[in-house]
Every structure is written in C-alpha cells, then in structure tokens.
C-alpha cells in the first residue's frame, strides 16, 4: 500500500462516434442545458460496450469502463489486449494527453511517456538540436539533457549524423535517437507503447535490456504495451488484460499472457458446426475441425509420442476452382511453428460440395505445450478465400510424464526426438590426425 505509485480509481472514458457537425452541436447544447440546471450529463448514462466488430445502438461508446488498478514502485506492468481493447486510451489518460470522463488517477513521481517515439522531432533540425528539444518536451531541463547528452548519443549509435537534420535519417536511426532520449529520462514512471516495432534486432535487444535496467536496477516503474508476448513475458512481472474497455484479468505476467493468448481461440480440439453459425463466407463454410491422437478420439489426451491427426470438413461453394487449404500452427508465445498447405486436388479444378482434408503431425516432434491453429483457404494459390484464426487448440502432454509428477516443460517451440549416436572413442588426440 505504501509503495503504490499509480492508483487508478473507477476510470472510465467515453467517446462519441461519428462526425463532429451539427448533430454533435445539438448534443453539446443539450449537455450544457443539463449542467446549467445542475443535472447530470444525459449522455453519460448511455453508451455501448466498446466492441468494434458489432454495430451498436448508441452513438456513444465506453472505451474504458470502471478500471481500478494499483501499480507498485518498481513494477514492470504489461498491458495486453486486442486492438481497440482500451490499452492506448488508458495510457493516454496516464500520460495526460486526454482526461478521463469519470474517475481519477493518482500518481507519485514524474511520468514520461513514449507513446510514440520521436514526438516533437523537427525534421529540419539536427539530431543534436532535436535531442534537446525532445528532451525538453518530455520534461527534462536543459542542464539535465546536457549532462546526459554523450550517453544518449552513445546509446543511439548515430554519432556520425548528430549534426545532420533528422529528415535525412533513416527511419531506424530516427527511432534509435528518439528512444535514446526517452530512455535517459529521469522519470519515476515510464510509459512505453509499441516502440519496438521499428529498429533492427540488435537495437531492439538493447532497448529491452535498457528497460529491464530501468525497472530492476533503478527501481523505476514501467508500463508496457506490446503485442509481442515473448518480450512481455521476459520483461514484465505483472500484467493486466483488457477487453472491450474492461479490465478482464490481472495477475502475474505469465498467467496474463497465457489468458490473453487463449482468449478468443476455440479451446476445443474438436468443433462441429451446422447451419447458420458455420464459420465461413460466400466461398467456404467450415463444418467440422478435429485434432486427435491417431486412432483415438479428440477427448483423449494427446501425448508427445502420438501421431496427431488434424482434420477439416468444409463446404466449397464455388464450381471449378483451384482450392488449397493451409494450416498455420503457433505456440503459446505466438511463435509461428509452421505454415503448411495442400491443394484440395492436385490434378484438376474442383467442383462445389463437401470435402475433407487432413494431415498428420509425426510423433515425437512437438513439445509438451499448447499450440493453436489458423486455417486459410486459398484460390489459385494466390487469393485468400477464407481465413479463420485460432480455430483449433491442442494441448500436448509429455509421454514420459508420470502421474502426479511435477510438470516439466522443455524450453523451445518444438521438442523433436532425434536419433543419437553414442560411443567411446579410442586413442583420441586433439589436433592430431588419427593414424593407425
């Protein structure tokens, strides 16, 4: 309780959809009229849950609804959620670029945000001038920047270009310099939103390392938004998952990441659809998918020693097309394990009707973990006819695992059983040819 640095209390944020025009003027006048008479804002009572895919009834949506959360000093908080879940809105409120509609946020210490790096960089100014400008925008004083200038330039690795206008920089260099400034901020709280999308692998690693230092060595608090679960799991100790503007789940980052990755994915290893709710479109509708150990039902556990049969039954609604089916498999960290596919018929174009396509994953290839599948139907091996993400999930269990023994997980995306050859060598001398 004592070392809480951010306290988010009942924060909600309402947005109005559609365009600003005479319609919104009418609402503004009505709202003003209500406040004049000391009544509550009439538009605060309405508003849909923020689900971007469904068409709501109201012009108002809640981008955030009743968020309560405490962040402790030195925490590395990862915020996950799909697009439009409210992550960025929350960060915007924290970084004070917009105010909440209701509720309050209390903060101890300075907040610096990296909502997008390079904010305020002026293309015509040199790198040096921009470091000062950007630093000042982020809240540093001139003397502070001066004392850290060499460090910033060294970190960015663009010494050579420091007196060149930043409009001549490559986008990578631009980001490097911008991130370097921000990373050297002396703020107690750092907000980072998807900055690692650019920059090469070496620099990304450097950034992640720096963020780790900031949090663990300097005791500063970091709020991190990313879709890169791997980085999140490495960096963050706690996490929160947002969904449609609500705080869905909070806890240790590993658990949150797990929850996030399986959310929205068909949990079952078998699914059968009929009629109206069949996934599909005007080209394809999927009737059934199934994953099971070969010769067993999908209810039985899948062991690492089993061959796994993946099946799909679907209706092709077009005549005379060259259709193919492609499966993509991901592990829980969303690492792409494989992308494999086949034409439904290698020889000729197919007619409309129901088809079944299956393949087998060899035994002793996968690790004992959860994998999920996307399925894609293609035409002429060029156009996507239909794609369904997360249509199947399998949990592979370790075949060697004894009942009740603690679960051992091998690192790695897969855990194949390779052939080993082992023998003792006679008279082996390092560096000398073996002569009889």
């Amino acid at each position, binding site marked *: *309780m004592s*070392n809480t640095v951010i306290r988010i209390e009942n924060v909600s944020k309402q947005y109005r959809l559609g365009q600003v025009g005479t319609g919104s003027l009418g609402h503004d006048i009505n709202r003003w009229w209500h406040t004049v008479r000391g009544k509550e804002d009439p538009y605060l009572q309405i508003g849909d849950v923020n689900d971007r895919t469904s068409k709501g009834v109201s012009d108002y949506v809640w981008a955030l609804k009743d968020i309560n959360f405490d962040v402790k000093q030195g925490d590395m908080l990862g915020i996950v959620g799909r697009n439009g879940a409210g992550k960025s809105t929350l960060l915007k409120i924290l970084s004070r670029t917009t105010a909440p509609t209701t509720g309050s*946020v*209390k903060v101890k*210490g300075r907040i610096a*945000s990296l909502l997008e790096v390079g904010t305020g960089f*002026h293309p015509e100014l040199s790198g040096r001038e921009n470091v000062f*400008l950007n630093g000042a925008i982020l809240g540093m*004083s001139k003397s502070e920047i001066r004392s850290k200038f060499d460090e910033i330039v060294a970190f960015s690795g663009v010494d050579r270009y420091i007196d060149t206008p930043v409009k001549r920089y490559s986008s990578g260099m631009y980001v490097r310099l911008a991130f370097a400034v921000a990373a050297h901020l002396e703020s107690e709280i750092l907000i980072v939103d998807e900055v690692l999308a650019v920059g090469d692998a070496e620099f990304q690693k450097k950034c992640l390392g720096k963020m780790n230092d900031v949090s663990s060595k300097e005791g500063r608090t970091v709020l991190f938004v990313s879709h890169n679960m791997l980085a999140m799991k490495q960096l963050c100790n706690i996490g929160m998952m947002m969904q449609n503007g609500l705080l869905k789940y909070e806890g240790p980052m590993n658990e949150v990441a797990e929850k996030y990755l399986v959310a929205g994915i068909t949990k079952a290893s078998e699914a059968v659809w009929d009629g109206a709710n069949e996934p599909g479109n005007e080209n394809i509708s999927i009737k059934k998918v199934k994953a099971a150990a070969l010769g067993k039902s999908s209810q039985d556990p899948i062991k690492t020693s089993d061959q796994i049969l993946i099946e799909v039954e679907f209706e092709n609604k077009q005549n005379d097309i060259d259709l193919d089916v492609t499966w993509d498999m991901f592990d829980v960290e969303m690492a792409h394990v494989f992308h494999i596919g086949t034409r439904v018929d290698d020889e000729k174009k197919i007619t409309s009707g129901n088809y079944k396509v299956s393949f087998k994953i060899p035994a002793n290839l996968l690790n004992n973990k959860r994998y999920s599948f996307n399925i894609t139907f293609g035409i002429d091996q060029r156009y996507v006819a239909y794609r369904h993400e997360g249509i199947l999930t399998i949990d592979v269990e370790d075949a060697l695992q004894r009942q009740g023994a603690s679960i051992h997980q091998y690192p790695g995306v897969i855990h194949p059983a390779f052939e080993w050859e082992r023998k003792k060598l006679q008279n082996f001398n390092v560096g000398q040819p073996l002569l009889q």
Partner: protein
Amino acid sequence: MNIAASAQVDTEVWDMEIQPKTGLFDLNLKEVWKYRDLMWLFVRRDFVASFKQTILGPLWHVIQPIMTTIMFLIVFGRIANIPTDGIPSAIFYMSGLTLWNYFSACLSGTSNTFLANSGIFGKVYFPRLVIPISTVLSNLVKLAIQFVLFFAIWTYYQYNGFAITLSWTWLLVPLLTIMMALMGLGIGIIISSLTTKYRDFSILIGFGIQILMYLTPIAYPLSYIDNPKYKMIIQANPLTPIIESLRFALFQTGELDVRGLLYSGVVIVVSLFFGLIIFNRVQKTFMDTV
C-alpha cells in the same frame, strides 16, 4: 528501498491527480514556468526552422514590411492622398505596420495552437500554454528585426529633414509591445480553444485580421477621421490607442491618450483572464474532438 517506502505508510502523498475536470482557476501557471527551457527551445526552433533551406534567410523579415510599406505608399499616399500628420509617410506607415505585424502574427499563431500541434499534443503532456507563449516570444525576434529596419529607414529620412530625437517617451515602446503581445495571446488562446471542436472560428480569423487592420489607424492617423460615428468605431478598437501611443512615443505628435490605453489594458486583462480559463478547460480533452 522498502524501509524508505514503508516509512511513509498511509501518508499517501500524491504528486499528481488526473481528474475529469479541475477547478476553474486551477491554471497551473507554476508548471508553465517549470517548462521555461522548452519554451525557449520552441522559440529557437521556430526561428531556425523557418529559414532552413532559404538563401535569404532572416532577410525575409525585412523584405516583407518593405513591400507592404511600398504598397501603402502607393495606395494610401499617392492614390488616396491621405495625410500622415506631418510625418514622412514611409516612416508613418512603417511604425504602425511594425507593431501591427507583430500583433497579427501573435494572433494568427496562437489561434492555431491546438490544430497545428495536435500531433505532438496527442503524444506527450506538457503545459499546453507553452506553445502560445513561445509563439508570442518567437515573433518578438521578428519584431526586433523590423524595428531595426524601421530605424534604418528613419536614419535615411533624418538627412531629409525628419530628425530622430531621443525622448523619454521612447520608454513607452516596450510597454506598448507587451500590451500588443498580451492582447494577441489573450484573443488567440480564446480562438484556439473555440476551434478545437468547431472549425468555424479558424475561417473567421483569416479575414477577421484583415478587417481589423483597416479598423486600426495604421494607414491613416486617427485625427484624419472627421465623421464622429466612424471615429467611435475606430476608437472602440482596443488596438487604436496602442498604435496611436506608439506614434506619440516615437514622434511626439499629439498627446498621450491615457484613457484609451487604460481601456486597452482592461480589454487585455479580460481577454487573458477568460482566455486562460477556457484554454485550461479545453486542453484536457481537446484530443478527443480535434
């Protein structure tokens, strides 16, 4: 680390509270002062960046008023034949134009605060007032250049019989400049706050400035207006006493209109007061509607 932290159990002192709305007079001007380095850098940026990749550079600040003065000389001097209170017409026009240009640059610059900077405002927080203030300050540099030009031309006229006489009244010039700056700032931030949601005002400001210029005695002296009705309209313009006083300060013509200046002062205070309140209110959520 934990010892230090647990020492302050339950005291829970928060450095900052983010709330939907703040008090009407919670203007946070202290914070603006904390960001003075940024203000200075913006001033520098405005000045440096506006002449990158031009050959004449800051010389453009000189060419602009000369061209306008020549236009005035032709239109108001030669064609319309408007007298200039016994002051050489070039000097007369230029004195008024110099301060007017400063005002119009401040007004159009600050009235654009939210729209022009929405990109940066959407990403980082800093006191938004830093931007309009730095606009006013960076225009001060241009004003100084134009004043130098003005005195250079006056020096030329000195040899043609219009002497430069140093007087205590010159001390009024900085005061009048500050009044112009604050007036531009006050009206500018009101307009910038009004344009975040409905853009109508930003269209208005374009020709509004033009009209205002003709309502200000820049191309003519106030004494030239005979019709009392028109004279009242022009005197109702709070810029009129400032421009007239500038001429008094520089050339000691006529007398100082103290009542007029007080009137301008009241307008400045009122517009700044309301400007700051509206600006402060709008800056919190303008990103949602801009």
